């Protein structure tokens, strides 16, 4: 970020540079002011307050008076529903990660290696679910799976895979499975683009050299492509994991946590306490759940971040040898 070079200009101009530089500073401050206001008011302040609220008993109406120290957290630790929902979030995240990461990589390799016509067309096709509203997908899918006479049961019966319609969303295991499949379908395109970005950073020379050495498709993949992708795969893992842990739109519209709360995730747990509880909203309790889960996600991210760093260092060592 260097200043424009003025050193080769005449001394008279140089005398003015300090004044000119200061004027540039004022402009720069002016330019970042709108961002600064939004940043302090709508980012920093809410983050700080999300911690503050978690120490109060507060319905969201009236002043913040009832400071109860760690009570919300203590209650949370004994709240079995919280821990069940915590597990549901983990279950969903693991399911989605395990499905999406490898399949999206296979697809990305297919797109990257083959010189087929219509690449953009296919990419658009497989990416399309990503740009659609998750909430609306949830509603459409609830109809596709939920009705006993709708699409999925119709299909399976036509091909004689099942005899009687299955109540997909009335069974806890099936409902979670449907949610994972729909979520994976929706998120797949993004991860495919992530992998493609990684693959395109590998220079064609390396492949050329491998070809000359007589390496076939699979040994090239195993010994060249995958090791090079290691650092970026850790980044993709991080993004996929964090995405999977914060599922709200889909669960709210597809199952609303049902049946019997068996698909309720932490984000829905918090929402229900803050905005949709039948009695008085418990903003403080909801906030403490948000903080606890936020810290969990943070620690997990640090763990993955450590993996990223390690993968990067391995590469450097290999590069030197």
């Amino acid at each position, binding site marked *: 970020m260097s200043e424009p070079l003025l050193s080769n200009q005449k001394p008279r101009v140089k005398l003015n540079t300090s004044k000119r530089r200061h004027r540039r500073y004022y402009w720069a401050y002016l330019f970042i002011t709108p961002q600064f206001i939004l940043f302090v008011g709508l980012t920093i302040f809410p983050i700080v307050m*999300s911690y503050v609220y978690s120490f109060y008993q507060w319905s969201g109406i009236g002043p913040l008076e009832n400071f109860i120290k760690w009570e919300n957290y203590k209650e949370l630790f004994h709240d079995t529903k919280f821990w069940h929902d915590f597990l549901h979030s983990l279950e969903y995240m693991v399911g989605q990660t395990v499905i999406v990461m490898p399949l999206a990589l296979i697809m990305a390799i297919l797109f990257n290696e083959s010189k*087929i016509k219509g690449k953009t067309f296919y990419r658009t096709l497989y990416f399309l679910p990503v740009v659609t509203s998750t909430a609306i997908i949830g509603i459409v899918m609830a109809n596709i799976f939920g009705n006993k006479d709708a*699409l999925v049961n119709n299909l399976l019966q036509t091909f004689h895979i099942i005899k009687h319609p299955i109540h997909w969303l009335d069974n806890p295991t099936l409902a979670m499975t449907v949610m994972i499949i729909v979520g994976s379908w929706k998120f797949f395109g993004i991860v495919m683009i992530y992998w493609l970005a990684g693959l395109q950073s590998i220079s064609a020379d390396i492949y050329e050299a491998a070809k000359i050495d007589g390496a076939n498709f699979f040994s090239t993949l195993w010994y060249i492509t995958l090791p090079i992708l290691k650092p970026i795969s850790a980044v993709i893992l991080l993004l996929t994991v964090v995405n999977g842990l914060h599922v709200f739109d889909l669960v709210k519209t597809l199952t609303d946590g049902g049946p019997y709360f068996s698909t309720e995730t932490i984000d829905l747990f918090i929402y229900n306490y803050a905005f949709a509880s039948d009695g008085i909203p418990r903003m403080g309790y909801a906030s403490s759940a948000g903080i606890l889960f936020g810290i969990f996600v943070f620690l997990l991210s640090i763990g993955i971040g450590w993996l990223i760093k390690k993968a990067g260092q391995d590469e450097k060592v290999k590069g030197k040898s």
Partner: protein
Amino acid sequence: MMGSRQRKIILHTILLILGAIWIYPFIWMVSSSLKSNIEFFGSGLNLIPKIFHWENYARAWETAQFSKYFFNSVVITVATVVIVTVVCALTGYALGRVSFPGRKLAMVLITATMFIPKGYTIIPLFEIVRHLGLMNHLSGVILAESAGAHVLYILLFTSYFSTIPGELEDAASIDGCGFFQTFRKVMLPLATPVIATTAIMQFIWSWNDFLVPLVFTLNRPELRTLAVGMYSFIGEYQTDYTGMAAGATIALVPIMLVFIFMQRYFIEGIAGAVKQ
């Protein structure tokens, strides 16, 4: 080994069949939106309805108020896109071209918000908007939608502006352009690709967002966006399946079209997220 031609044909066949299955839910949705409610269940896998029931759209648009939801979605999305793009371009320009005191600190702060653990920030956001007295107005939703540190956009603008050679700025200043004029007339036009990426990503994000409009319009049906309107529609007209399909089509087709025409910029932005 197979011939490369044969391999290509097989590959195309696989990609096409998989692709058809992949987007089948959307095809089903559009097809259902033109069926009658009886046909919706009775017609099995037949995709093309006997008679096109366009009245499903009329019902969704007028009776179920999708016209209003559509208008709200457009206003909220466009306003948010303009605010976010302008603010991020200004910030990126200052960070990318001027090494003012505090610049490093600003960069650290902005990136730090991506990593520090946060709680459920929508509750305080809700409180701020309430205190500003914007609860009964679309501007409240717009403000809440514009929140966030927009780290990716800022970094994209910063790195783009920092690569433009300084000679260009000198030339502009010799031509009598001040700081702002140089930005407005010389630099901003050069940054069109980044502007496009930011605008399209924010457009898709705002159009599809659910939690913010849901929370902010809980007691104000007249401010609902398409996603929230669709959700309340399901609650009110549970058995109107074809109306549901028509509403979903109204909500999804515009965003798909925007994506198809602007996809290069959107995909570059997504790829930028891993590269940063």
